[in-house]
């Protein structure tokens, strides 16, 4: 079975703090994704990566950055957390080369982040 794990299920941070959310997958997937989920808005793509050290902006990248130094690990970084970044963050991974090879996305359990 594909396994996608996220470093924390719940996280509480203060405004202005630097926050790291980590995601690890064990299936040698090329693609990895970070989404945020908010009530009434569904899931929105923040960033994705199709290879080590490669990244592409999604729909809402502002206020976030990412890092992919190893194939199995994709980190989401909030440089200076703000209250409007309180959300559920979901990581996903899939097989596939860059771009358009369509594969099923497998999701981690999510991290609920509260920024005070």
């Amino acid at each position, binding site marked *: 079975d594909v396994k996608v794990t996220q470093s924390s299920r719940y996280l509480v941070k203060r405004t202005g703090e630097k926050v790291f959310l980590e995601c690890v997958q064990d299936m040698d997937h090329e693609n990895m994704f970070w989404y945020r989920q908010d009530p009434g808005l*569904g*899931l929105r793509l923040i960033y994705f990566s199709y290879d080590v050290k490669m990244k592409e902006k999604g729909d809402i990248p502002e206020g976030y950055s990412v890092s992919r130094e190893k194939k199995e690990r994709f980190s989401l970084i909030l440089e200076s957390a703000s209250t409007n970044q309180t959300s559920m963050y979901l990581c996903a991974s899939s097989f596939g080369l860059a*771009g*358009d090879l369509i594969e099923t996305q497998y999701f981690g*359990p999510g991290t609920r982040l509260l920024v005070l």
Partner: protein
Amino acid sequence: GIQVEQSPPDLILQEGANSTLRCNFSDSVNNLQWFHQNPWGQLINLFYIPSGTKQNGRLSATTVATERYSLLYISSSQTTDSGVYFCAVARFPGANNLFFGTGTRLTVIP
């Protein structure tokens, strides 16, 4: 991006009942997936179905790409079917960049 509308937003069923969830999308797509999010937040892929019909046990899905909609059928519902069902779509180029609908929240009562 592509607009995705799901209906109904909420659905309450008695155990054993059948239901149909609908997903409308605003443009042609090459990628359409249905997901189930359980009450603990875990998202599971149910179907990859950009066109045609697929079945998996009590679940089946049909996508009519030319008319830009997809339907998810749940038969003989069980309490474990409760959760939120999402439809997500994408198109070339960038067919892994999924646009999600806002979901249908299903509650199955015993």
